[in-house]
């Protein structure tokens, strides 16, 4: 009977292509997070924690909707058997992650996982990791990254860290500490005690070094902080204030601002030779430099035209030209690691917002909704931004994140008040 039906169906199907297919252009969609089921990983008890972190990572991205484990119909007993896909379609899951954690005889933790396509009824991805048990969180982030990449086509950003300024104390005299944490807010570590003002930290491309501004000894200067050795050093020996440091994409240079007699100009310092080159000479404020990912250009802000606006120049200082012509003032440009966008702070109508535009200044869009949002930083995949949000009336500051499309704006978990986030590259 089955055979007959199949034959009939085949016959039927054969006749169909003869008739012309109906052509339908689908131009509009409905942007929704992907419903995905991530049961606790089986085996070692740590498996439940790993699944929990993966669920939280994917949920935070705004592109996934991890389904409530209580709704799951099927219990995963082995990760080496295909799930019963119909059981997952019942709860409207479109993806399923099954995993297993096992303690190895050598003391390490082994973690396997598979990503299943519920409608395609196939495995999309399967990976295995070994690590020291205490690194389970990192494994979870790596799994999140792998799932994210397989579903969206682009690299994830969960196995990254954030360097930021942790704030506390009275509004008139904030205690600011240099701090780092995992992208999900876990493992916060304070690198300074708050005895002096610190501002605007930024990672180098290996995430081993931080350039930031410190008022230690009453002299505001740019410092380098080596995370491996804990050593700090003043960058250069300049008589006046240095600020707004940012590494070149190869990590060999730092672009920053030197103030002299009230005038601020952009310089680039070569970290190997410690020689520096002046890039701007205008008597206006020139600051907030940020390299393009190919290292060939620098975007920066200047008020040379009468108000603070965004400019782009070649890395040697040539061909300086304005790119922001929208309303209000525009500052703190930061080039996307993808190269396709520059994020910036837009000031107008009494508020600050985060915006993005193409490097030629076109396609400007405002993507954040706070009252005073400033200082954007890009996730290494160029897809998500974080920034400082200062609350009205001295009620403190927070770190927020938003998708480059303007979706999924949400507060980033920090220990207390925080500002000036900078995203690390993917950790190697």
């Amino acid at each position: 009977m089955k055979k007959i039906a199949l034959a009939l169906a085949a016959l039927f199907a054969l006749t169909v292509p003869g008739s012309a297919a109906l052509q339908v252009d689908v131009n509009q969609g409905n942007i929704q997070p992907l419903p995905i089921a991530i049961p606790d990983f089986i085996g070692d008890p740590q498996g439940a924690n790993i699944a929990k972190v993966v669920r939280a990572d994917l949920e935070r991205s705004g592109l996934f909707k991890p389904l409530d484990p209580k709704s799951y119909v099927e219990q995963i007993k082995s990760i080496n058997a295909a799930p019963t896909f119909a059981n997952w379609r019942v709860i409207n899951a479109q993806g399923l992650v099954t995993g297993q954690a096992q303690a190895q005889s050598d003391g390490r933790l082994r973690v396997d996982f598979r990503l299943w396509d519920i409608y395609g009824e196939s495995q999309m991805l399967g990976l295995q990791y070994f690590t020291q048990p205490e690194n389970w969180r990192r494994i979870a982030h790596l799994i999140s990254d792998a799932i994210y990449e397989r579903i969206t086509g682009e690299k994830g950003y969960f196995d990254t860290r954030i360097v930021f300024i942790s704030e506390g104390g009275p509004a008139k005299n904030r205690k600011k500490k240099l701090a780092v944490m995992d992208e999900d807010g876990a493992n916060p570590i304070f690198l300074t005690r708050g005895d002096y003002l610190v501002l605007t930290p930024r990672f180098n491309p290996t995430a081993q070094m931080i350039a930031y501004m410190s008022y230690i000894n009453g002299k505001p200067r740019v410092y380098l902080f080596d995370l491996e050795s804990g050593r700090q050093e003043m960058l250069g020996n300049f008589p006046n204030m240095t600020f707004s440091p940012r590494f070149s994409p190869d990590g060999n240079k730092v672009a920053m601002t030197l103030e002299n007699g009230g005038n601020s100009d952009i310089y680039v310092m070569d970290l190997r030779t410690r020689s520096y080159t002046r890039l701007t000479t205008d008597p206006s404020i020139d600051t907030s430099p940020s390299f393009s990912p190919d290292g060939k250009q620098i975007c920066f802000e200047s008020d040379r035209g009468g108000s603070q606006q965004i400019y782009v120049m070649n890395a040697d200082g040539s061909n300086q030209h304005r790119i922001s012509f929208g309303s209000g003032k525009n500052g703190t440009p930061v080039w996307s690691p993808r190269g396709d966008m520059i994020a910036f702070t837009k000031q107008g109508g009494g508020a600050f917002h985060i915006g993005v535009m193409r490097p030629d200044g076109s396609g400007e869009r405002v993507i954040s909704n706070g009252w005073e949002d400033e200082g954007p930083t890009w996730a290494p995949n160029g897809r998500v931004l974080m920034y400082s949000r200062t609350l009205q009336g001295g009620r403190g500051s927070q770190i927020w994140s938003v998708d480059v499309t303007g979706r999924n704006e949400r507060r980033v978990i920090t220990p207390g008040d925080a500002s000036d986030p900078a995203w690390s590259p993917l950790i190697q």
Partner: protein
Amino acid sequence: MTRFSGLLKFAALSAALALAACSSKPEAPPADNGPPPAQTDNSAPVQSSSIVPGSAEDLRVNVGDTVHFDYDKYEIMEADRSVLQRQASWLAKYPSVRVTIEGHCDERGTREYNLALGARRANAVKEYLVSLGVANGRLETISYGKERPMCTESSESCYAQNRRGVTTITGGASS
């Protein structure tokens, strides 16, 4: 009812205090005030008699250590010139005193831009004092951008207080 009137009294008292606080703020450049209230709090109440001539307090209370700026500007305002003239005379009277001029901004500027703007303001004060005969070497500048506000409300009157240049003694003062 008694509680209510008590509340009323409290409210009235608060309002009076607030008014008093406001009027003492150096909005305008009056002849002899302009002390940043927050900083004087820790010392004795203002009594010019107890102030040591040539001290930091002398500068703050009797001379005036603060000038103000318009939004996103760094020119010395007409009204503030008398303060700087008094500072210059005072510095001439106490030649061993060295000062640092702090430049501050309101919150309506981005962090790095405000560092640069604060530097401009501090430098404008410095240049004005130099033009009045104060030796260049006695004057240093530092910018705090928007990091050290005097007032934390998000209002124009508050912003105006925060856009300031403050002359602070770093050495050689009487104590």
